[in-house]
């Protein structure tokens, strides 16, 4: 069984609206980041891969199994939906146990696996806590634990870090990286920092189309030599924003230290600097103020 996901000419429509346009992707073992604005089509793609939405056109195979064979795909796929929740009155252990049964695990297997997984996501001590009493971060970790309960070859994680505090976010990314050592993990997010910290391979989705597919370093290379910093007065800021894509700002009294994207050195005093993923993403999405 080939450990890859192959998506060829995938088109997805909601009535007349095209949510995915001719998407072609090959995803191998490890962490794969899917980046895009809200409404770019990430969740649609995730749902198609999780067999929760029927694809309209194209072919998709998960580890060699065509998506049409939903029952087999479900056996090797774990899914953490964007709006993850569980029956609030169940305890953490009960929720895992219930989903374990739905995943076809036997009683002995569940007894062995669940404590191990809860320990991996640092929830073992909270196993008797009701789901409704968990914090947002704990719920997401429980979400990961339930998604890998049946040891899937593919893990699909949709916007997992939204709403988490910085500490929980870092912990969550590390957890995903650990899990990705043995399987394909697809991480969909609109938070560039999540991708930067965890993924080597990424795809950028915009209005249903793949804008970029490749490594993070290649994406950064695209913006190399086009990222500048400059200290300008506050009054000059609106004009600068009109002409260039500003990726960050830091107020220093009456001045502002800005980081922005420009094809050539824009003015005296602007200094070219090393591009980051966020700069590269903004460059890809907006070009030199040529907003897509």
């Amino acid at each position, binding site marked *: 069984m080939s450990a890859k996901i192959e998506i060829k000419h995938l088109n997805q429509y909601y009535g007349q609206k095209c949510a995915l346009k001719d998407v072609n992707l090959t995803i191998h073992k490890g962490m794969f980041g899917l980046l895009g604005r809200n409404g770019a089509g990430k969740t649609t793609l995730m749902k198609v891969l999780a067999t*929760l939405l029927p694809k309209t056109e194209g072919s998709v195979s998960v580890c060699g199994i065509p998506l049409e064979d939903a029952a087999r795909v*479900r056996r090797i*796929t774990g899914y953490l939906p964007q709006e*993850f*929740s569980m029956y609030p009155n169940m305890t953490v252990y009960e929720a895992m146990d219930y*989903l374990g049964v*739905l*995943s*076809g695990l036997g009683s002995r297997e569940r007894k062995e696996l669940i404590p191990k997984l809860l320990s991996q996501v640092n929830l073992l001590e909270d196993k008797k806590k009701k789901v409704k009493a968990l914090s947002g971060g704990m719920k997401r970790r429980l979400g990961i634990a339930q998604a890998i309960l049946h040891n899937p070859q593919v893990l699909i994680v949709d916007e997992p870090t939204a709403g988490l505090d910085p500490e929980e976010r870092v912990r969550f990314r590390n957890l995903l990286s650990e899990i990705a050592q043995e399987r394909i993990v697809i991480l969909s997010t609109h938070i560039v920092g999540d991708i930067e910290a965890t993924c080597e391979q990424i795809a950028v989705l915009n209005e249903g189309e793949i804008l970029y597919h490749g490594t993070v370093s290649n994406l950064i290379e695209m913006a190399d030599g086009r990222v500048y910093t400059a200290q300008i007065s506050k009054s000059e800021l609106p004009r600068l924003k009109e002409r260039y894509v500003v990726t960050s700002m830091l107020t220093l009294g009456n001045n502002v230290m800005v980081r922005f994207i420009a094809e050539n050195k824009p003015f005296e005093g602007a200094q070219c600097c090393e591009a980051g993923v966020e700069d590269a993403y903004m460059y890809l999405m907006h070009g030199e103020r040529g907003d897509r």
Partner: protein
Amino acid sequence: MFLNLLAKECRQIAKSMIYWLIVGILVIFYFSQLGGMSIAEKPEPGQENYGLAYGGDEKDVMDSTLGYLVSEYMNGKYATYPIGFYKAVTPSEADEKRIGEIIEQTTGLSGGENIADAIEEAQGGAQIVYGSSPVQVKEDLDYEEFKKLMQEVDDMLGGGSNYAADSLESNVSSPKTYEQALEDYNNLIEKDHLTGGYARLFCDYMGILLGILPVFLAVTRGLRDRRSKMQELIACRKASSVSIIASRYAAMLIMLMVPVLLLSCIPLVQCIQAASGTAIRIDYLAFAKYSLGWLLPTTMTAAAVGLVLTELTDTALGVLVQIVWWFLTVFSSMGSMHGGAYGWSFIPRHNTVYNYMGFHENFWELAANRGLYATLSIVLAVFSIFIYSLKRKGRLDIRGKILGNLKRKHKA
């Protein structure tokens, strides 16, 4: 996997508040209706009262029905119970005239335009007492013809009156004689083994609640997934749609029938006590047999209506539908409460420990009735599985479409 899921579902139900509310209602209803029940004793000659006997010969039925019709005609208003609730109907002039003609046809009175005068004359000036007009039925009137004419009156009144052809017999009731009471008692002891009669009475009362309560359990179970945002999490699992839905449905039925079977132990124990030291041979399994054969199809159907409509719409529509059906059934079956006329009623009535003959003679009618509802519920459950499997693959989203349309209309 199915048995594991079934156990989990039963556990979930046992932890839900709605389930214990249902159990509480069943228990309270049982004790309020049957709690003070005492086991029948052999009637003795010279007793003051032996209860009422319903029905009579054709002549009695016609006399009694005409008694109601004439008094209501003279009053100008007719009592009807179209869905069980009282409604006074004042017919149109044309209908009133036709009813007068029917009275002429059935009584032989001839008054032309003034049948009311002829009635008063026949009364001899006495005040008309509701339901007991002394007007006599025409001697050569055929019973089938009479039934047809009465049905015509019922149709004119919008249904649910005393004149519906299939409930004319309930217009006649008379005090039982000692002999009738003794025959009923002997049937209860010898043919029904005591427990049969009490099991039917138990089913009569419990059937009323089981025709409505299961829908609440089914709807809340179905909606719990959406409320807890668990739909996708469950949908992407390995478990088949058949296992998921069938385990939920079976768990509901098991958890609903357990308290019913436990409650049935109370009258069973009463019967055992009454039979001890006598020659009465009771059937220890009667309550279980009746509960499963009589009450289970009702429970299955009410739960299946909730299941299928919740899966289809992701709303509590099932509750509304079941309430309407329940009202119509319960109140329209009031005329057949003493048993023996089960027809296709969703909730068959037999509100007496007696009338063994009514049960015995119509047993196959009842069996067909129960078979129909059991089959219907299985069909609905299978349909629920089909709907669920479509939803699981994202091929059906009726709720989304309804909400989408509402949003569009709101915007417009």
